[in-house]
């Protein structure tokens, strides 16, 4: 049963556009899905290596801007009268380049900031996100600043001569986002169930012991940062091509907080956690909207979050696993002592 559960859930979700015709709800599914991808990427860093990056939205925003600019083209004058002109490229290429550029930023930030841990690391990541936001806001020639980048083309797939497919409508975007979620899930689950994932868990659990068994701390932290940033960049690219307009507000601290809430409530360090947390906090505003005024909606949002953290401090997924006896550990407190003393 446990083996089929993810497949059943996937089929149920995949059937949504077939019976759900309300464009507003479908839109919520898509934006929630995009944030789930971002939350999954944050979970790799926060849940598995134990490093809290509060600047995660930077990678999301960099992905969004990169993808938009690659597909829109730009004409920028750099210092010294040096001109860079870029003709528009196919959108799928923008998606790939967004992942690469975000991954590269993850590498640089990781290399620089993993010299410090804990609160210092958190501060470095927040500062990074803020710097990137200010660049996006002030480099008007490239990003249009607060005027926003507009008319971003929808995602297209295809090759010259073979025809193209545009992800223009909501159902097609729904399946696109679902596809990226599945892909990200597969990548992350393979990673965390391998020797790389074990190295990450070891770092989170006990860094000196991990080092003493020969695990190169910086290498695995940076690797986690690169993959995490790349996936966040993919989410950002989906966001840009779905909304077709982005402004420097994509770098808002609020988005990072949303991702952190999704990961923590769903259960950090579990594969399904960000998905469950993401669905809940993506849909609370929708449900609350039907009966409450905007101020009350946010209060409800906050109360619900506090409630979950208070009742299920480990998150929803680990709590469910415990209730349904999945991954149950045999109770080993009592008999062990007696046995060791009997041993010859």
């Amino acid at each position, binding site marked *: 049963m446990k083996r089929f559960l993810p497949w059943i859930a996937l089929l149920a979700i995949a059937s949504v556009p077939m019976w759900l015709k309300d464009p507003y709800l479908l839109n919520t599914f898509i934006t929630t899905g995009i944030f789930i991808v971002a939350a999954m990427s944050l979970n790799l860093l926060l849940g598995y290596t134990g490093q809290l990056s509060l600047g995660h939205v930077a990678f999301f925003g960099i992905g969004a801007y990169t993808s938009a600019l690659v597909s829109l083209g730009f004409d920028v004058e750099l210092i010294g009268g040096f001109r860079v002109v870029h003709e528009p490229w196919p959108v799928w290429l923008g998606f790939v380049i967004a992942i690469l550029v975000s991954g590269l930023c993850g590498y640089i930030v990781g290399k620089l900031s993993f010299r410090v841990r804990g609160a210092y690391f958190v501060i470095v990541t927040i500062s990074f996100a803020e710097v990137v936001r200010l660049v996006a806001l002030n480099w008007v020639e490239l990003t249009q600043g607060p005027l926003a980048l507009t008319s971003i083309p929808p995602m297209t797939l295809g090759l010259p001569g073979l025809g193209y497919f545009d992800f223009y409508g909501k159902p097609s975007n729904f399946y696109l986002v679902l596809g990226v979620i599945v892909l990200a899930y597969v990548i992350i689950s393979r990673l965390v169930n*391998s020797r790389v994932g074990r190295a990450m868990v070891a770092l989170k*659990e006990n860094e000196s012991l991990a080092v003493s*068994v*020969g695990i190169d701390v910086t290498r695995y932290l940076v690797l986690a940062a690169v993959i995490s940033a790349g996936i966040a960049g993919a989410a950002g690219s989906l966001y840009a091509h779905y909304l077709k307009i982005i402004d420097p507000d994509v770098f808002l601290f609020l988005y990072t907080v949303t991702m952190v809430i999704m990961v923590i409530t769903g259960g950090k360090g579990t594969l399904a956690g960000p998905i469950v947390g993401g669905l809940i906090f993506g849909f609370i505003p929708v449900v609350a909207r039907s009966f409450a005024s905007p101020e009350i909606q946010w209060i409800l949002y906050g109360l619900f979050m506090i409630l979950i953290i208070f009742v299920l401090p480990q998150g929803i997924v680990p709590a469910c696993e415990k209730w349904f006896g999945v991954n149950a550990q045999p109770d080993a407190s009592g008999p062990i002592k007696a046995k060791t003393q009997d041993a010859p």
Partner: protein
Amino acid sequence: MDVRSTQTQPALSIEHIAVHFGGLVAISDMSFVVNEGEVVSLIGPNGAGKTTAFNVITGFLRPSKGDVRYRGTSLSNLKPHEVTSLGLVRTFQRTSVFQSVSVFENVMIGLHRRGRSRLWDTLLALPRERESENELKTRAAEILALVGIERRTAELAGSLSYGDQRLLGVALALATDPSMLLLDEPVSGMNATETARFMQLLARLRGFGVTILLVEHDMPMVMGVSDRIVVLNYGKIIAEGPPAAIQGNPEVIQAYLGQGAKKRARD
């Protein structure tokens, strides 16, 4: 584990190590060697600098002066994980296991360096990934059997008894395939039976040719397993020699063993 090599070859040599924390002198000037295949104990009162010496040897701490060499390689500028990859592996005094994962996963983590799969093998689930994982699983089971906690495989490491956690700590170190082990108070907190079991394990490791440097307060055990003993006091070596000589050394008795030891030594 390595084949036993010539006994008199120095494996680890500590050359005029000094460690200062600001004005505090943790180790003033320490030199000794551990030969291949030998079991050497480092003893002395609390605060004498034993754990500091371990931290220096394994790269967790940079010495203010002096050098440490292992099989001819200087360890001064190596990071801890690089020291481990030379085959020189330590255990810790207190937190010695990954508490919230299973005993088996702990050893799998310890086997990290033996895994052959690359990142691409993992992401694309290529055959090499599974082969490597299967090898590691077989090896993990062997190591758990060697230290004698194979019946605890599925339990969370944090739920093990104290003695079993210490054994798991040793299993973790063994998983890295060491040629030399540095054990920091491995039997502290163990009862007599557990200590006896641990001494048997040490004897077996020795049989594999693993060189051992031991820090321990349990004197019967130290006297029982060591080829040589190095005694530290206030960051200085005050005596060095085989157990019998150390037990009779007046300075050691004065600083650490106490008068009772003198009587026992005479008996």
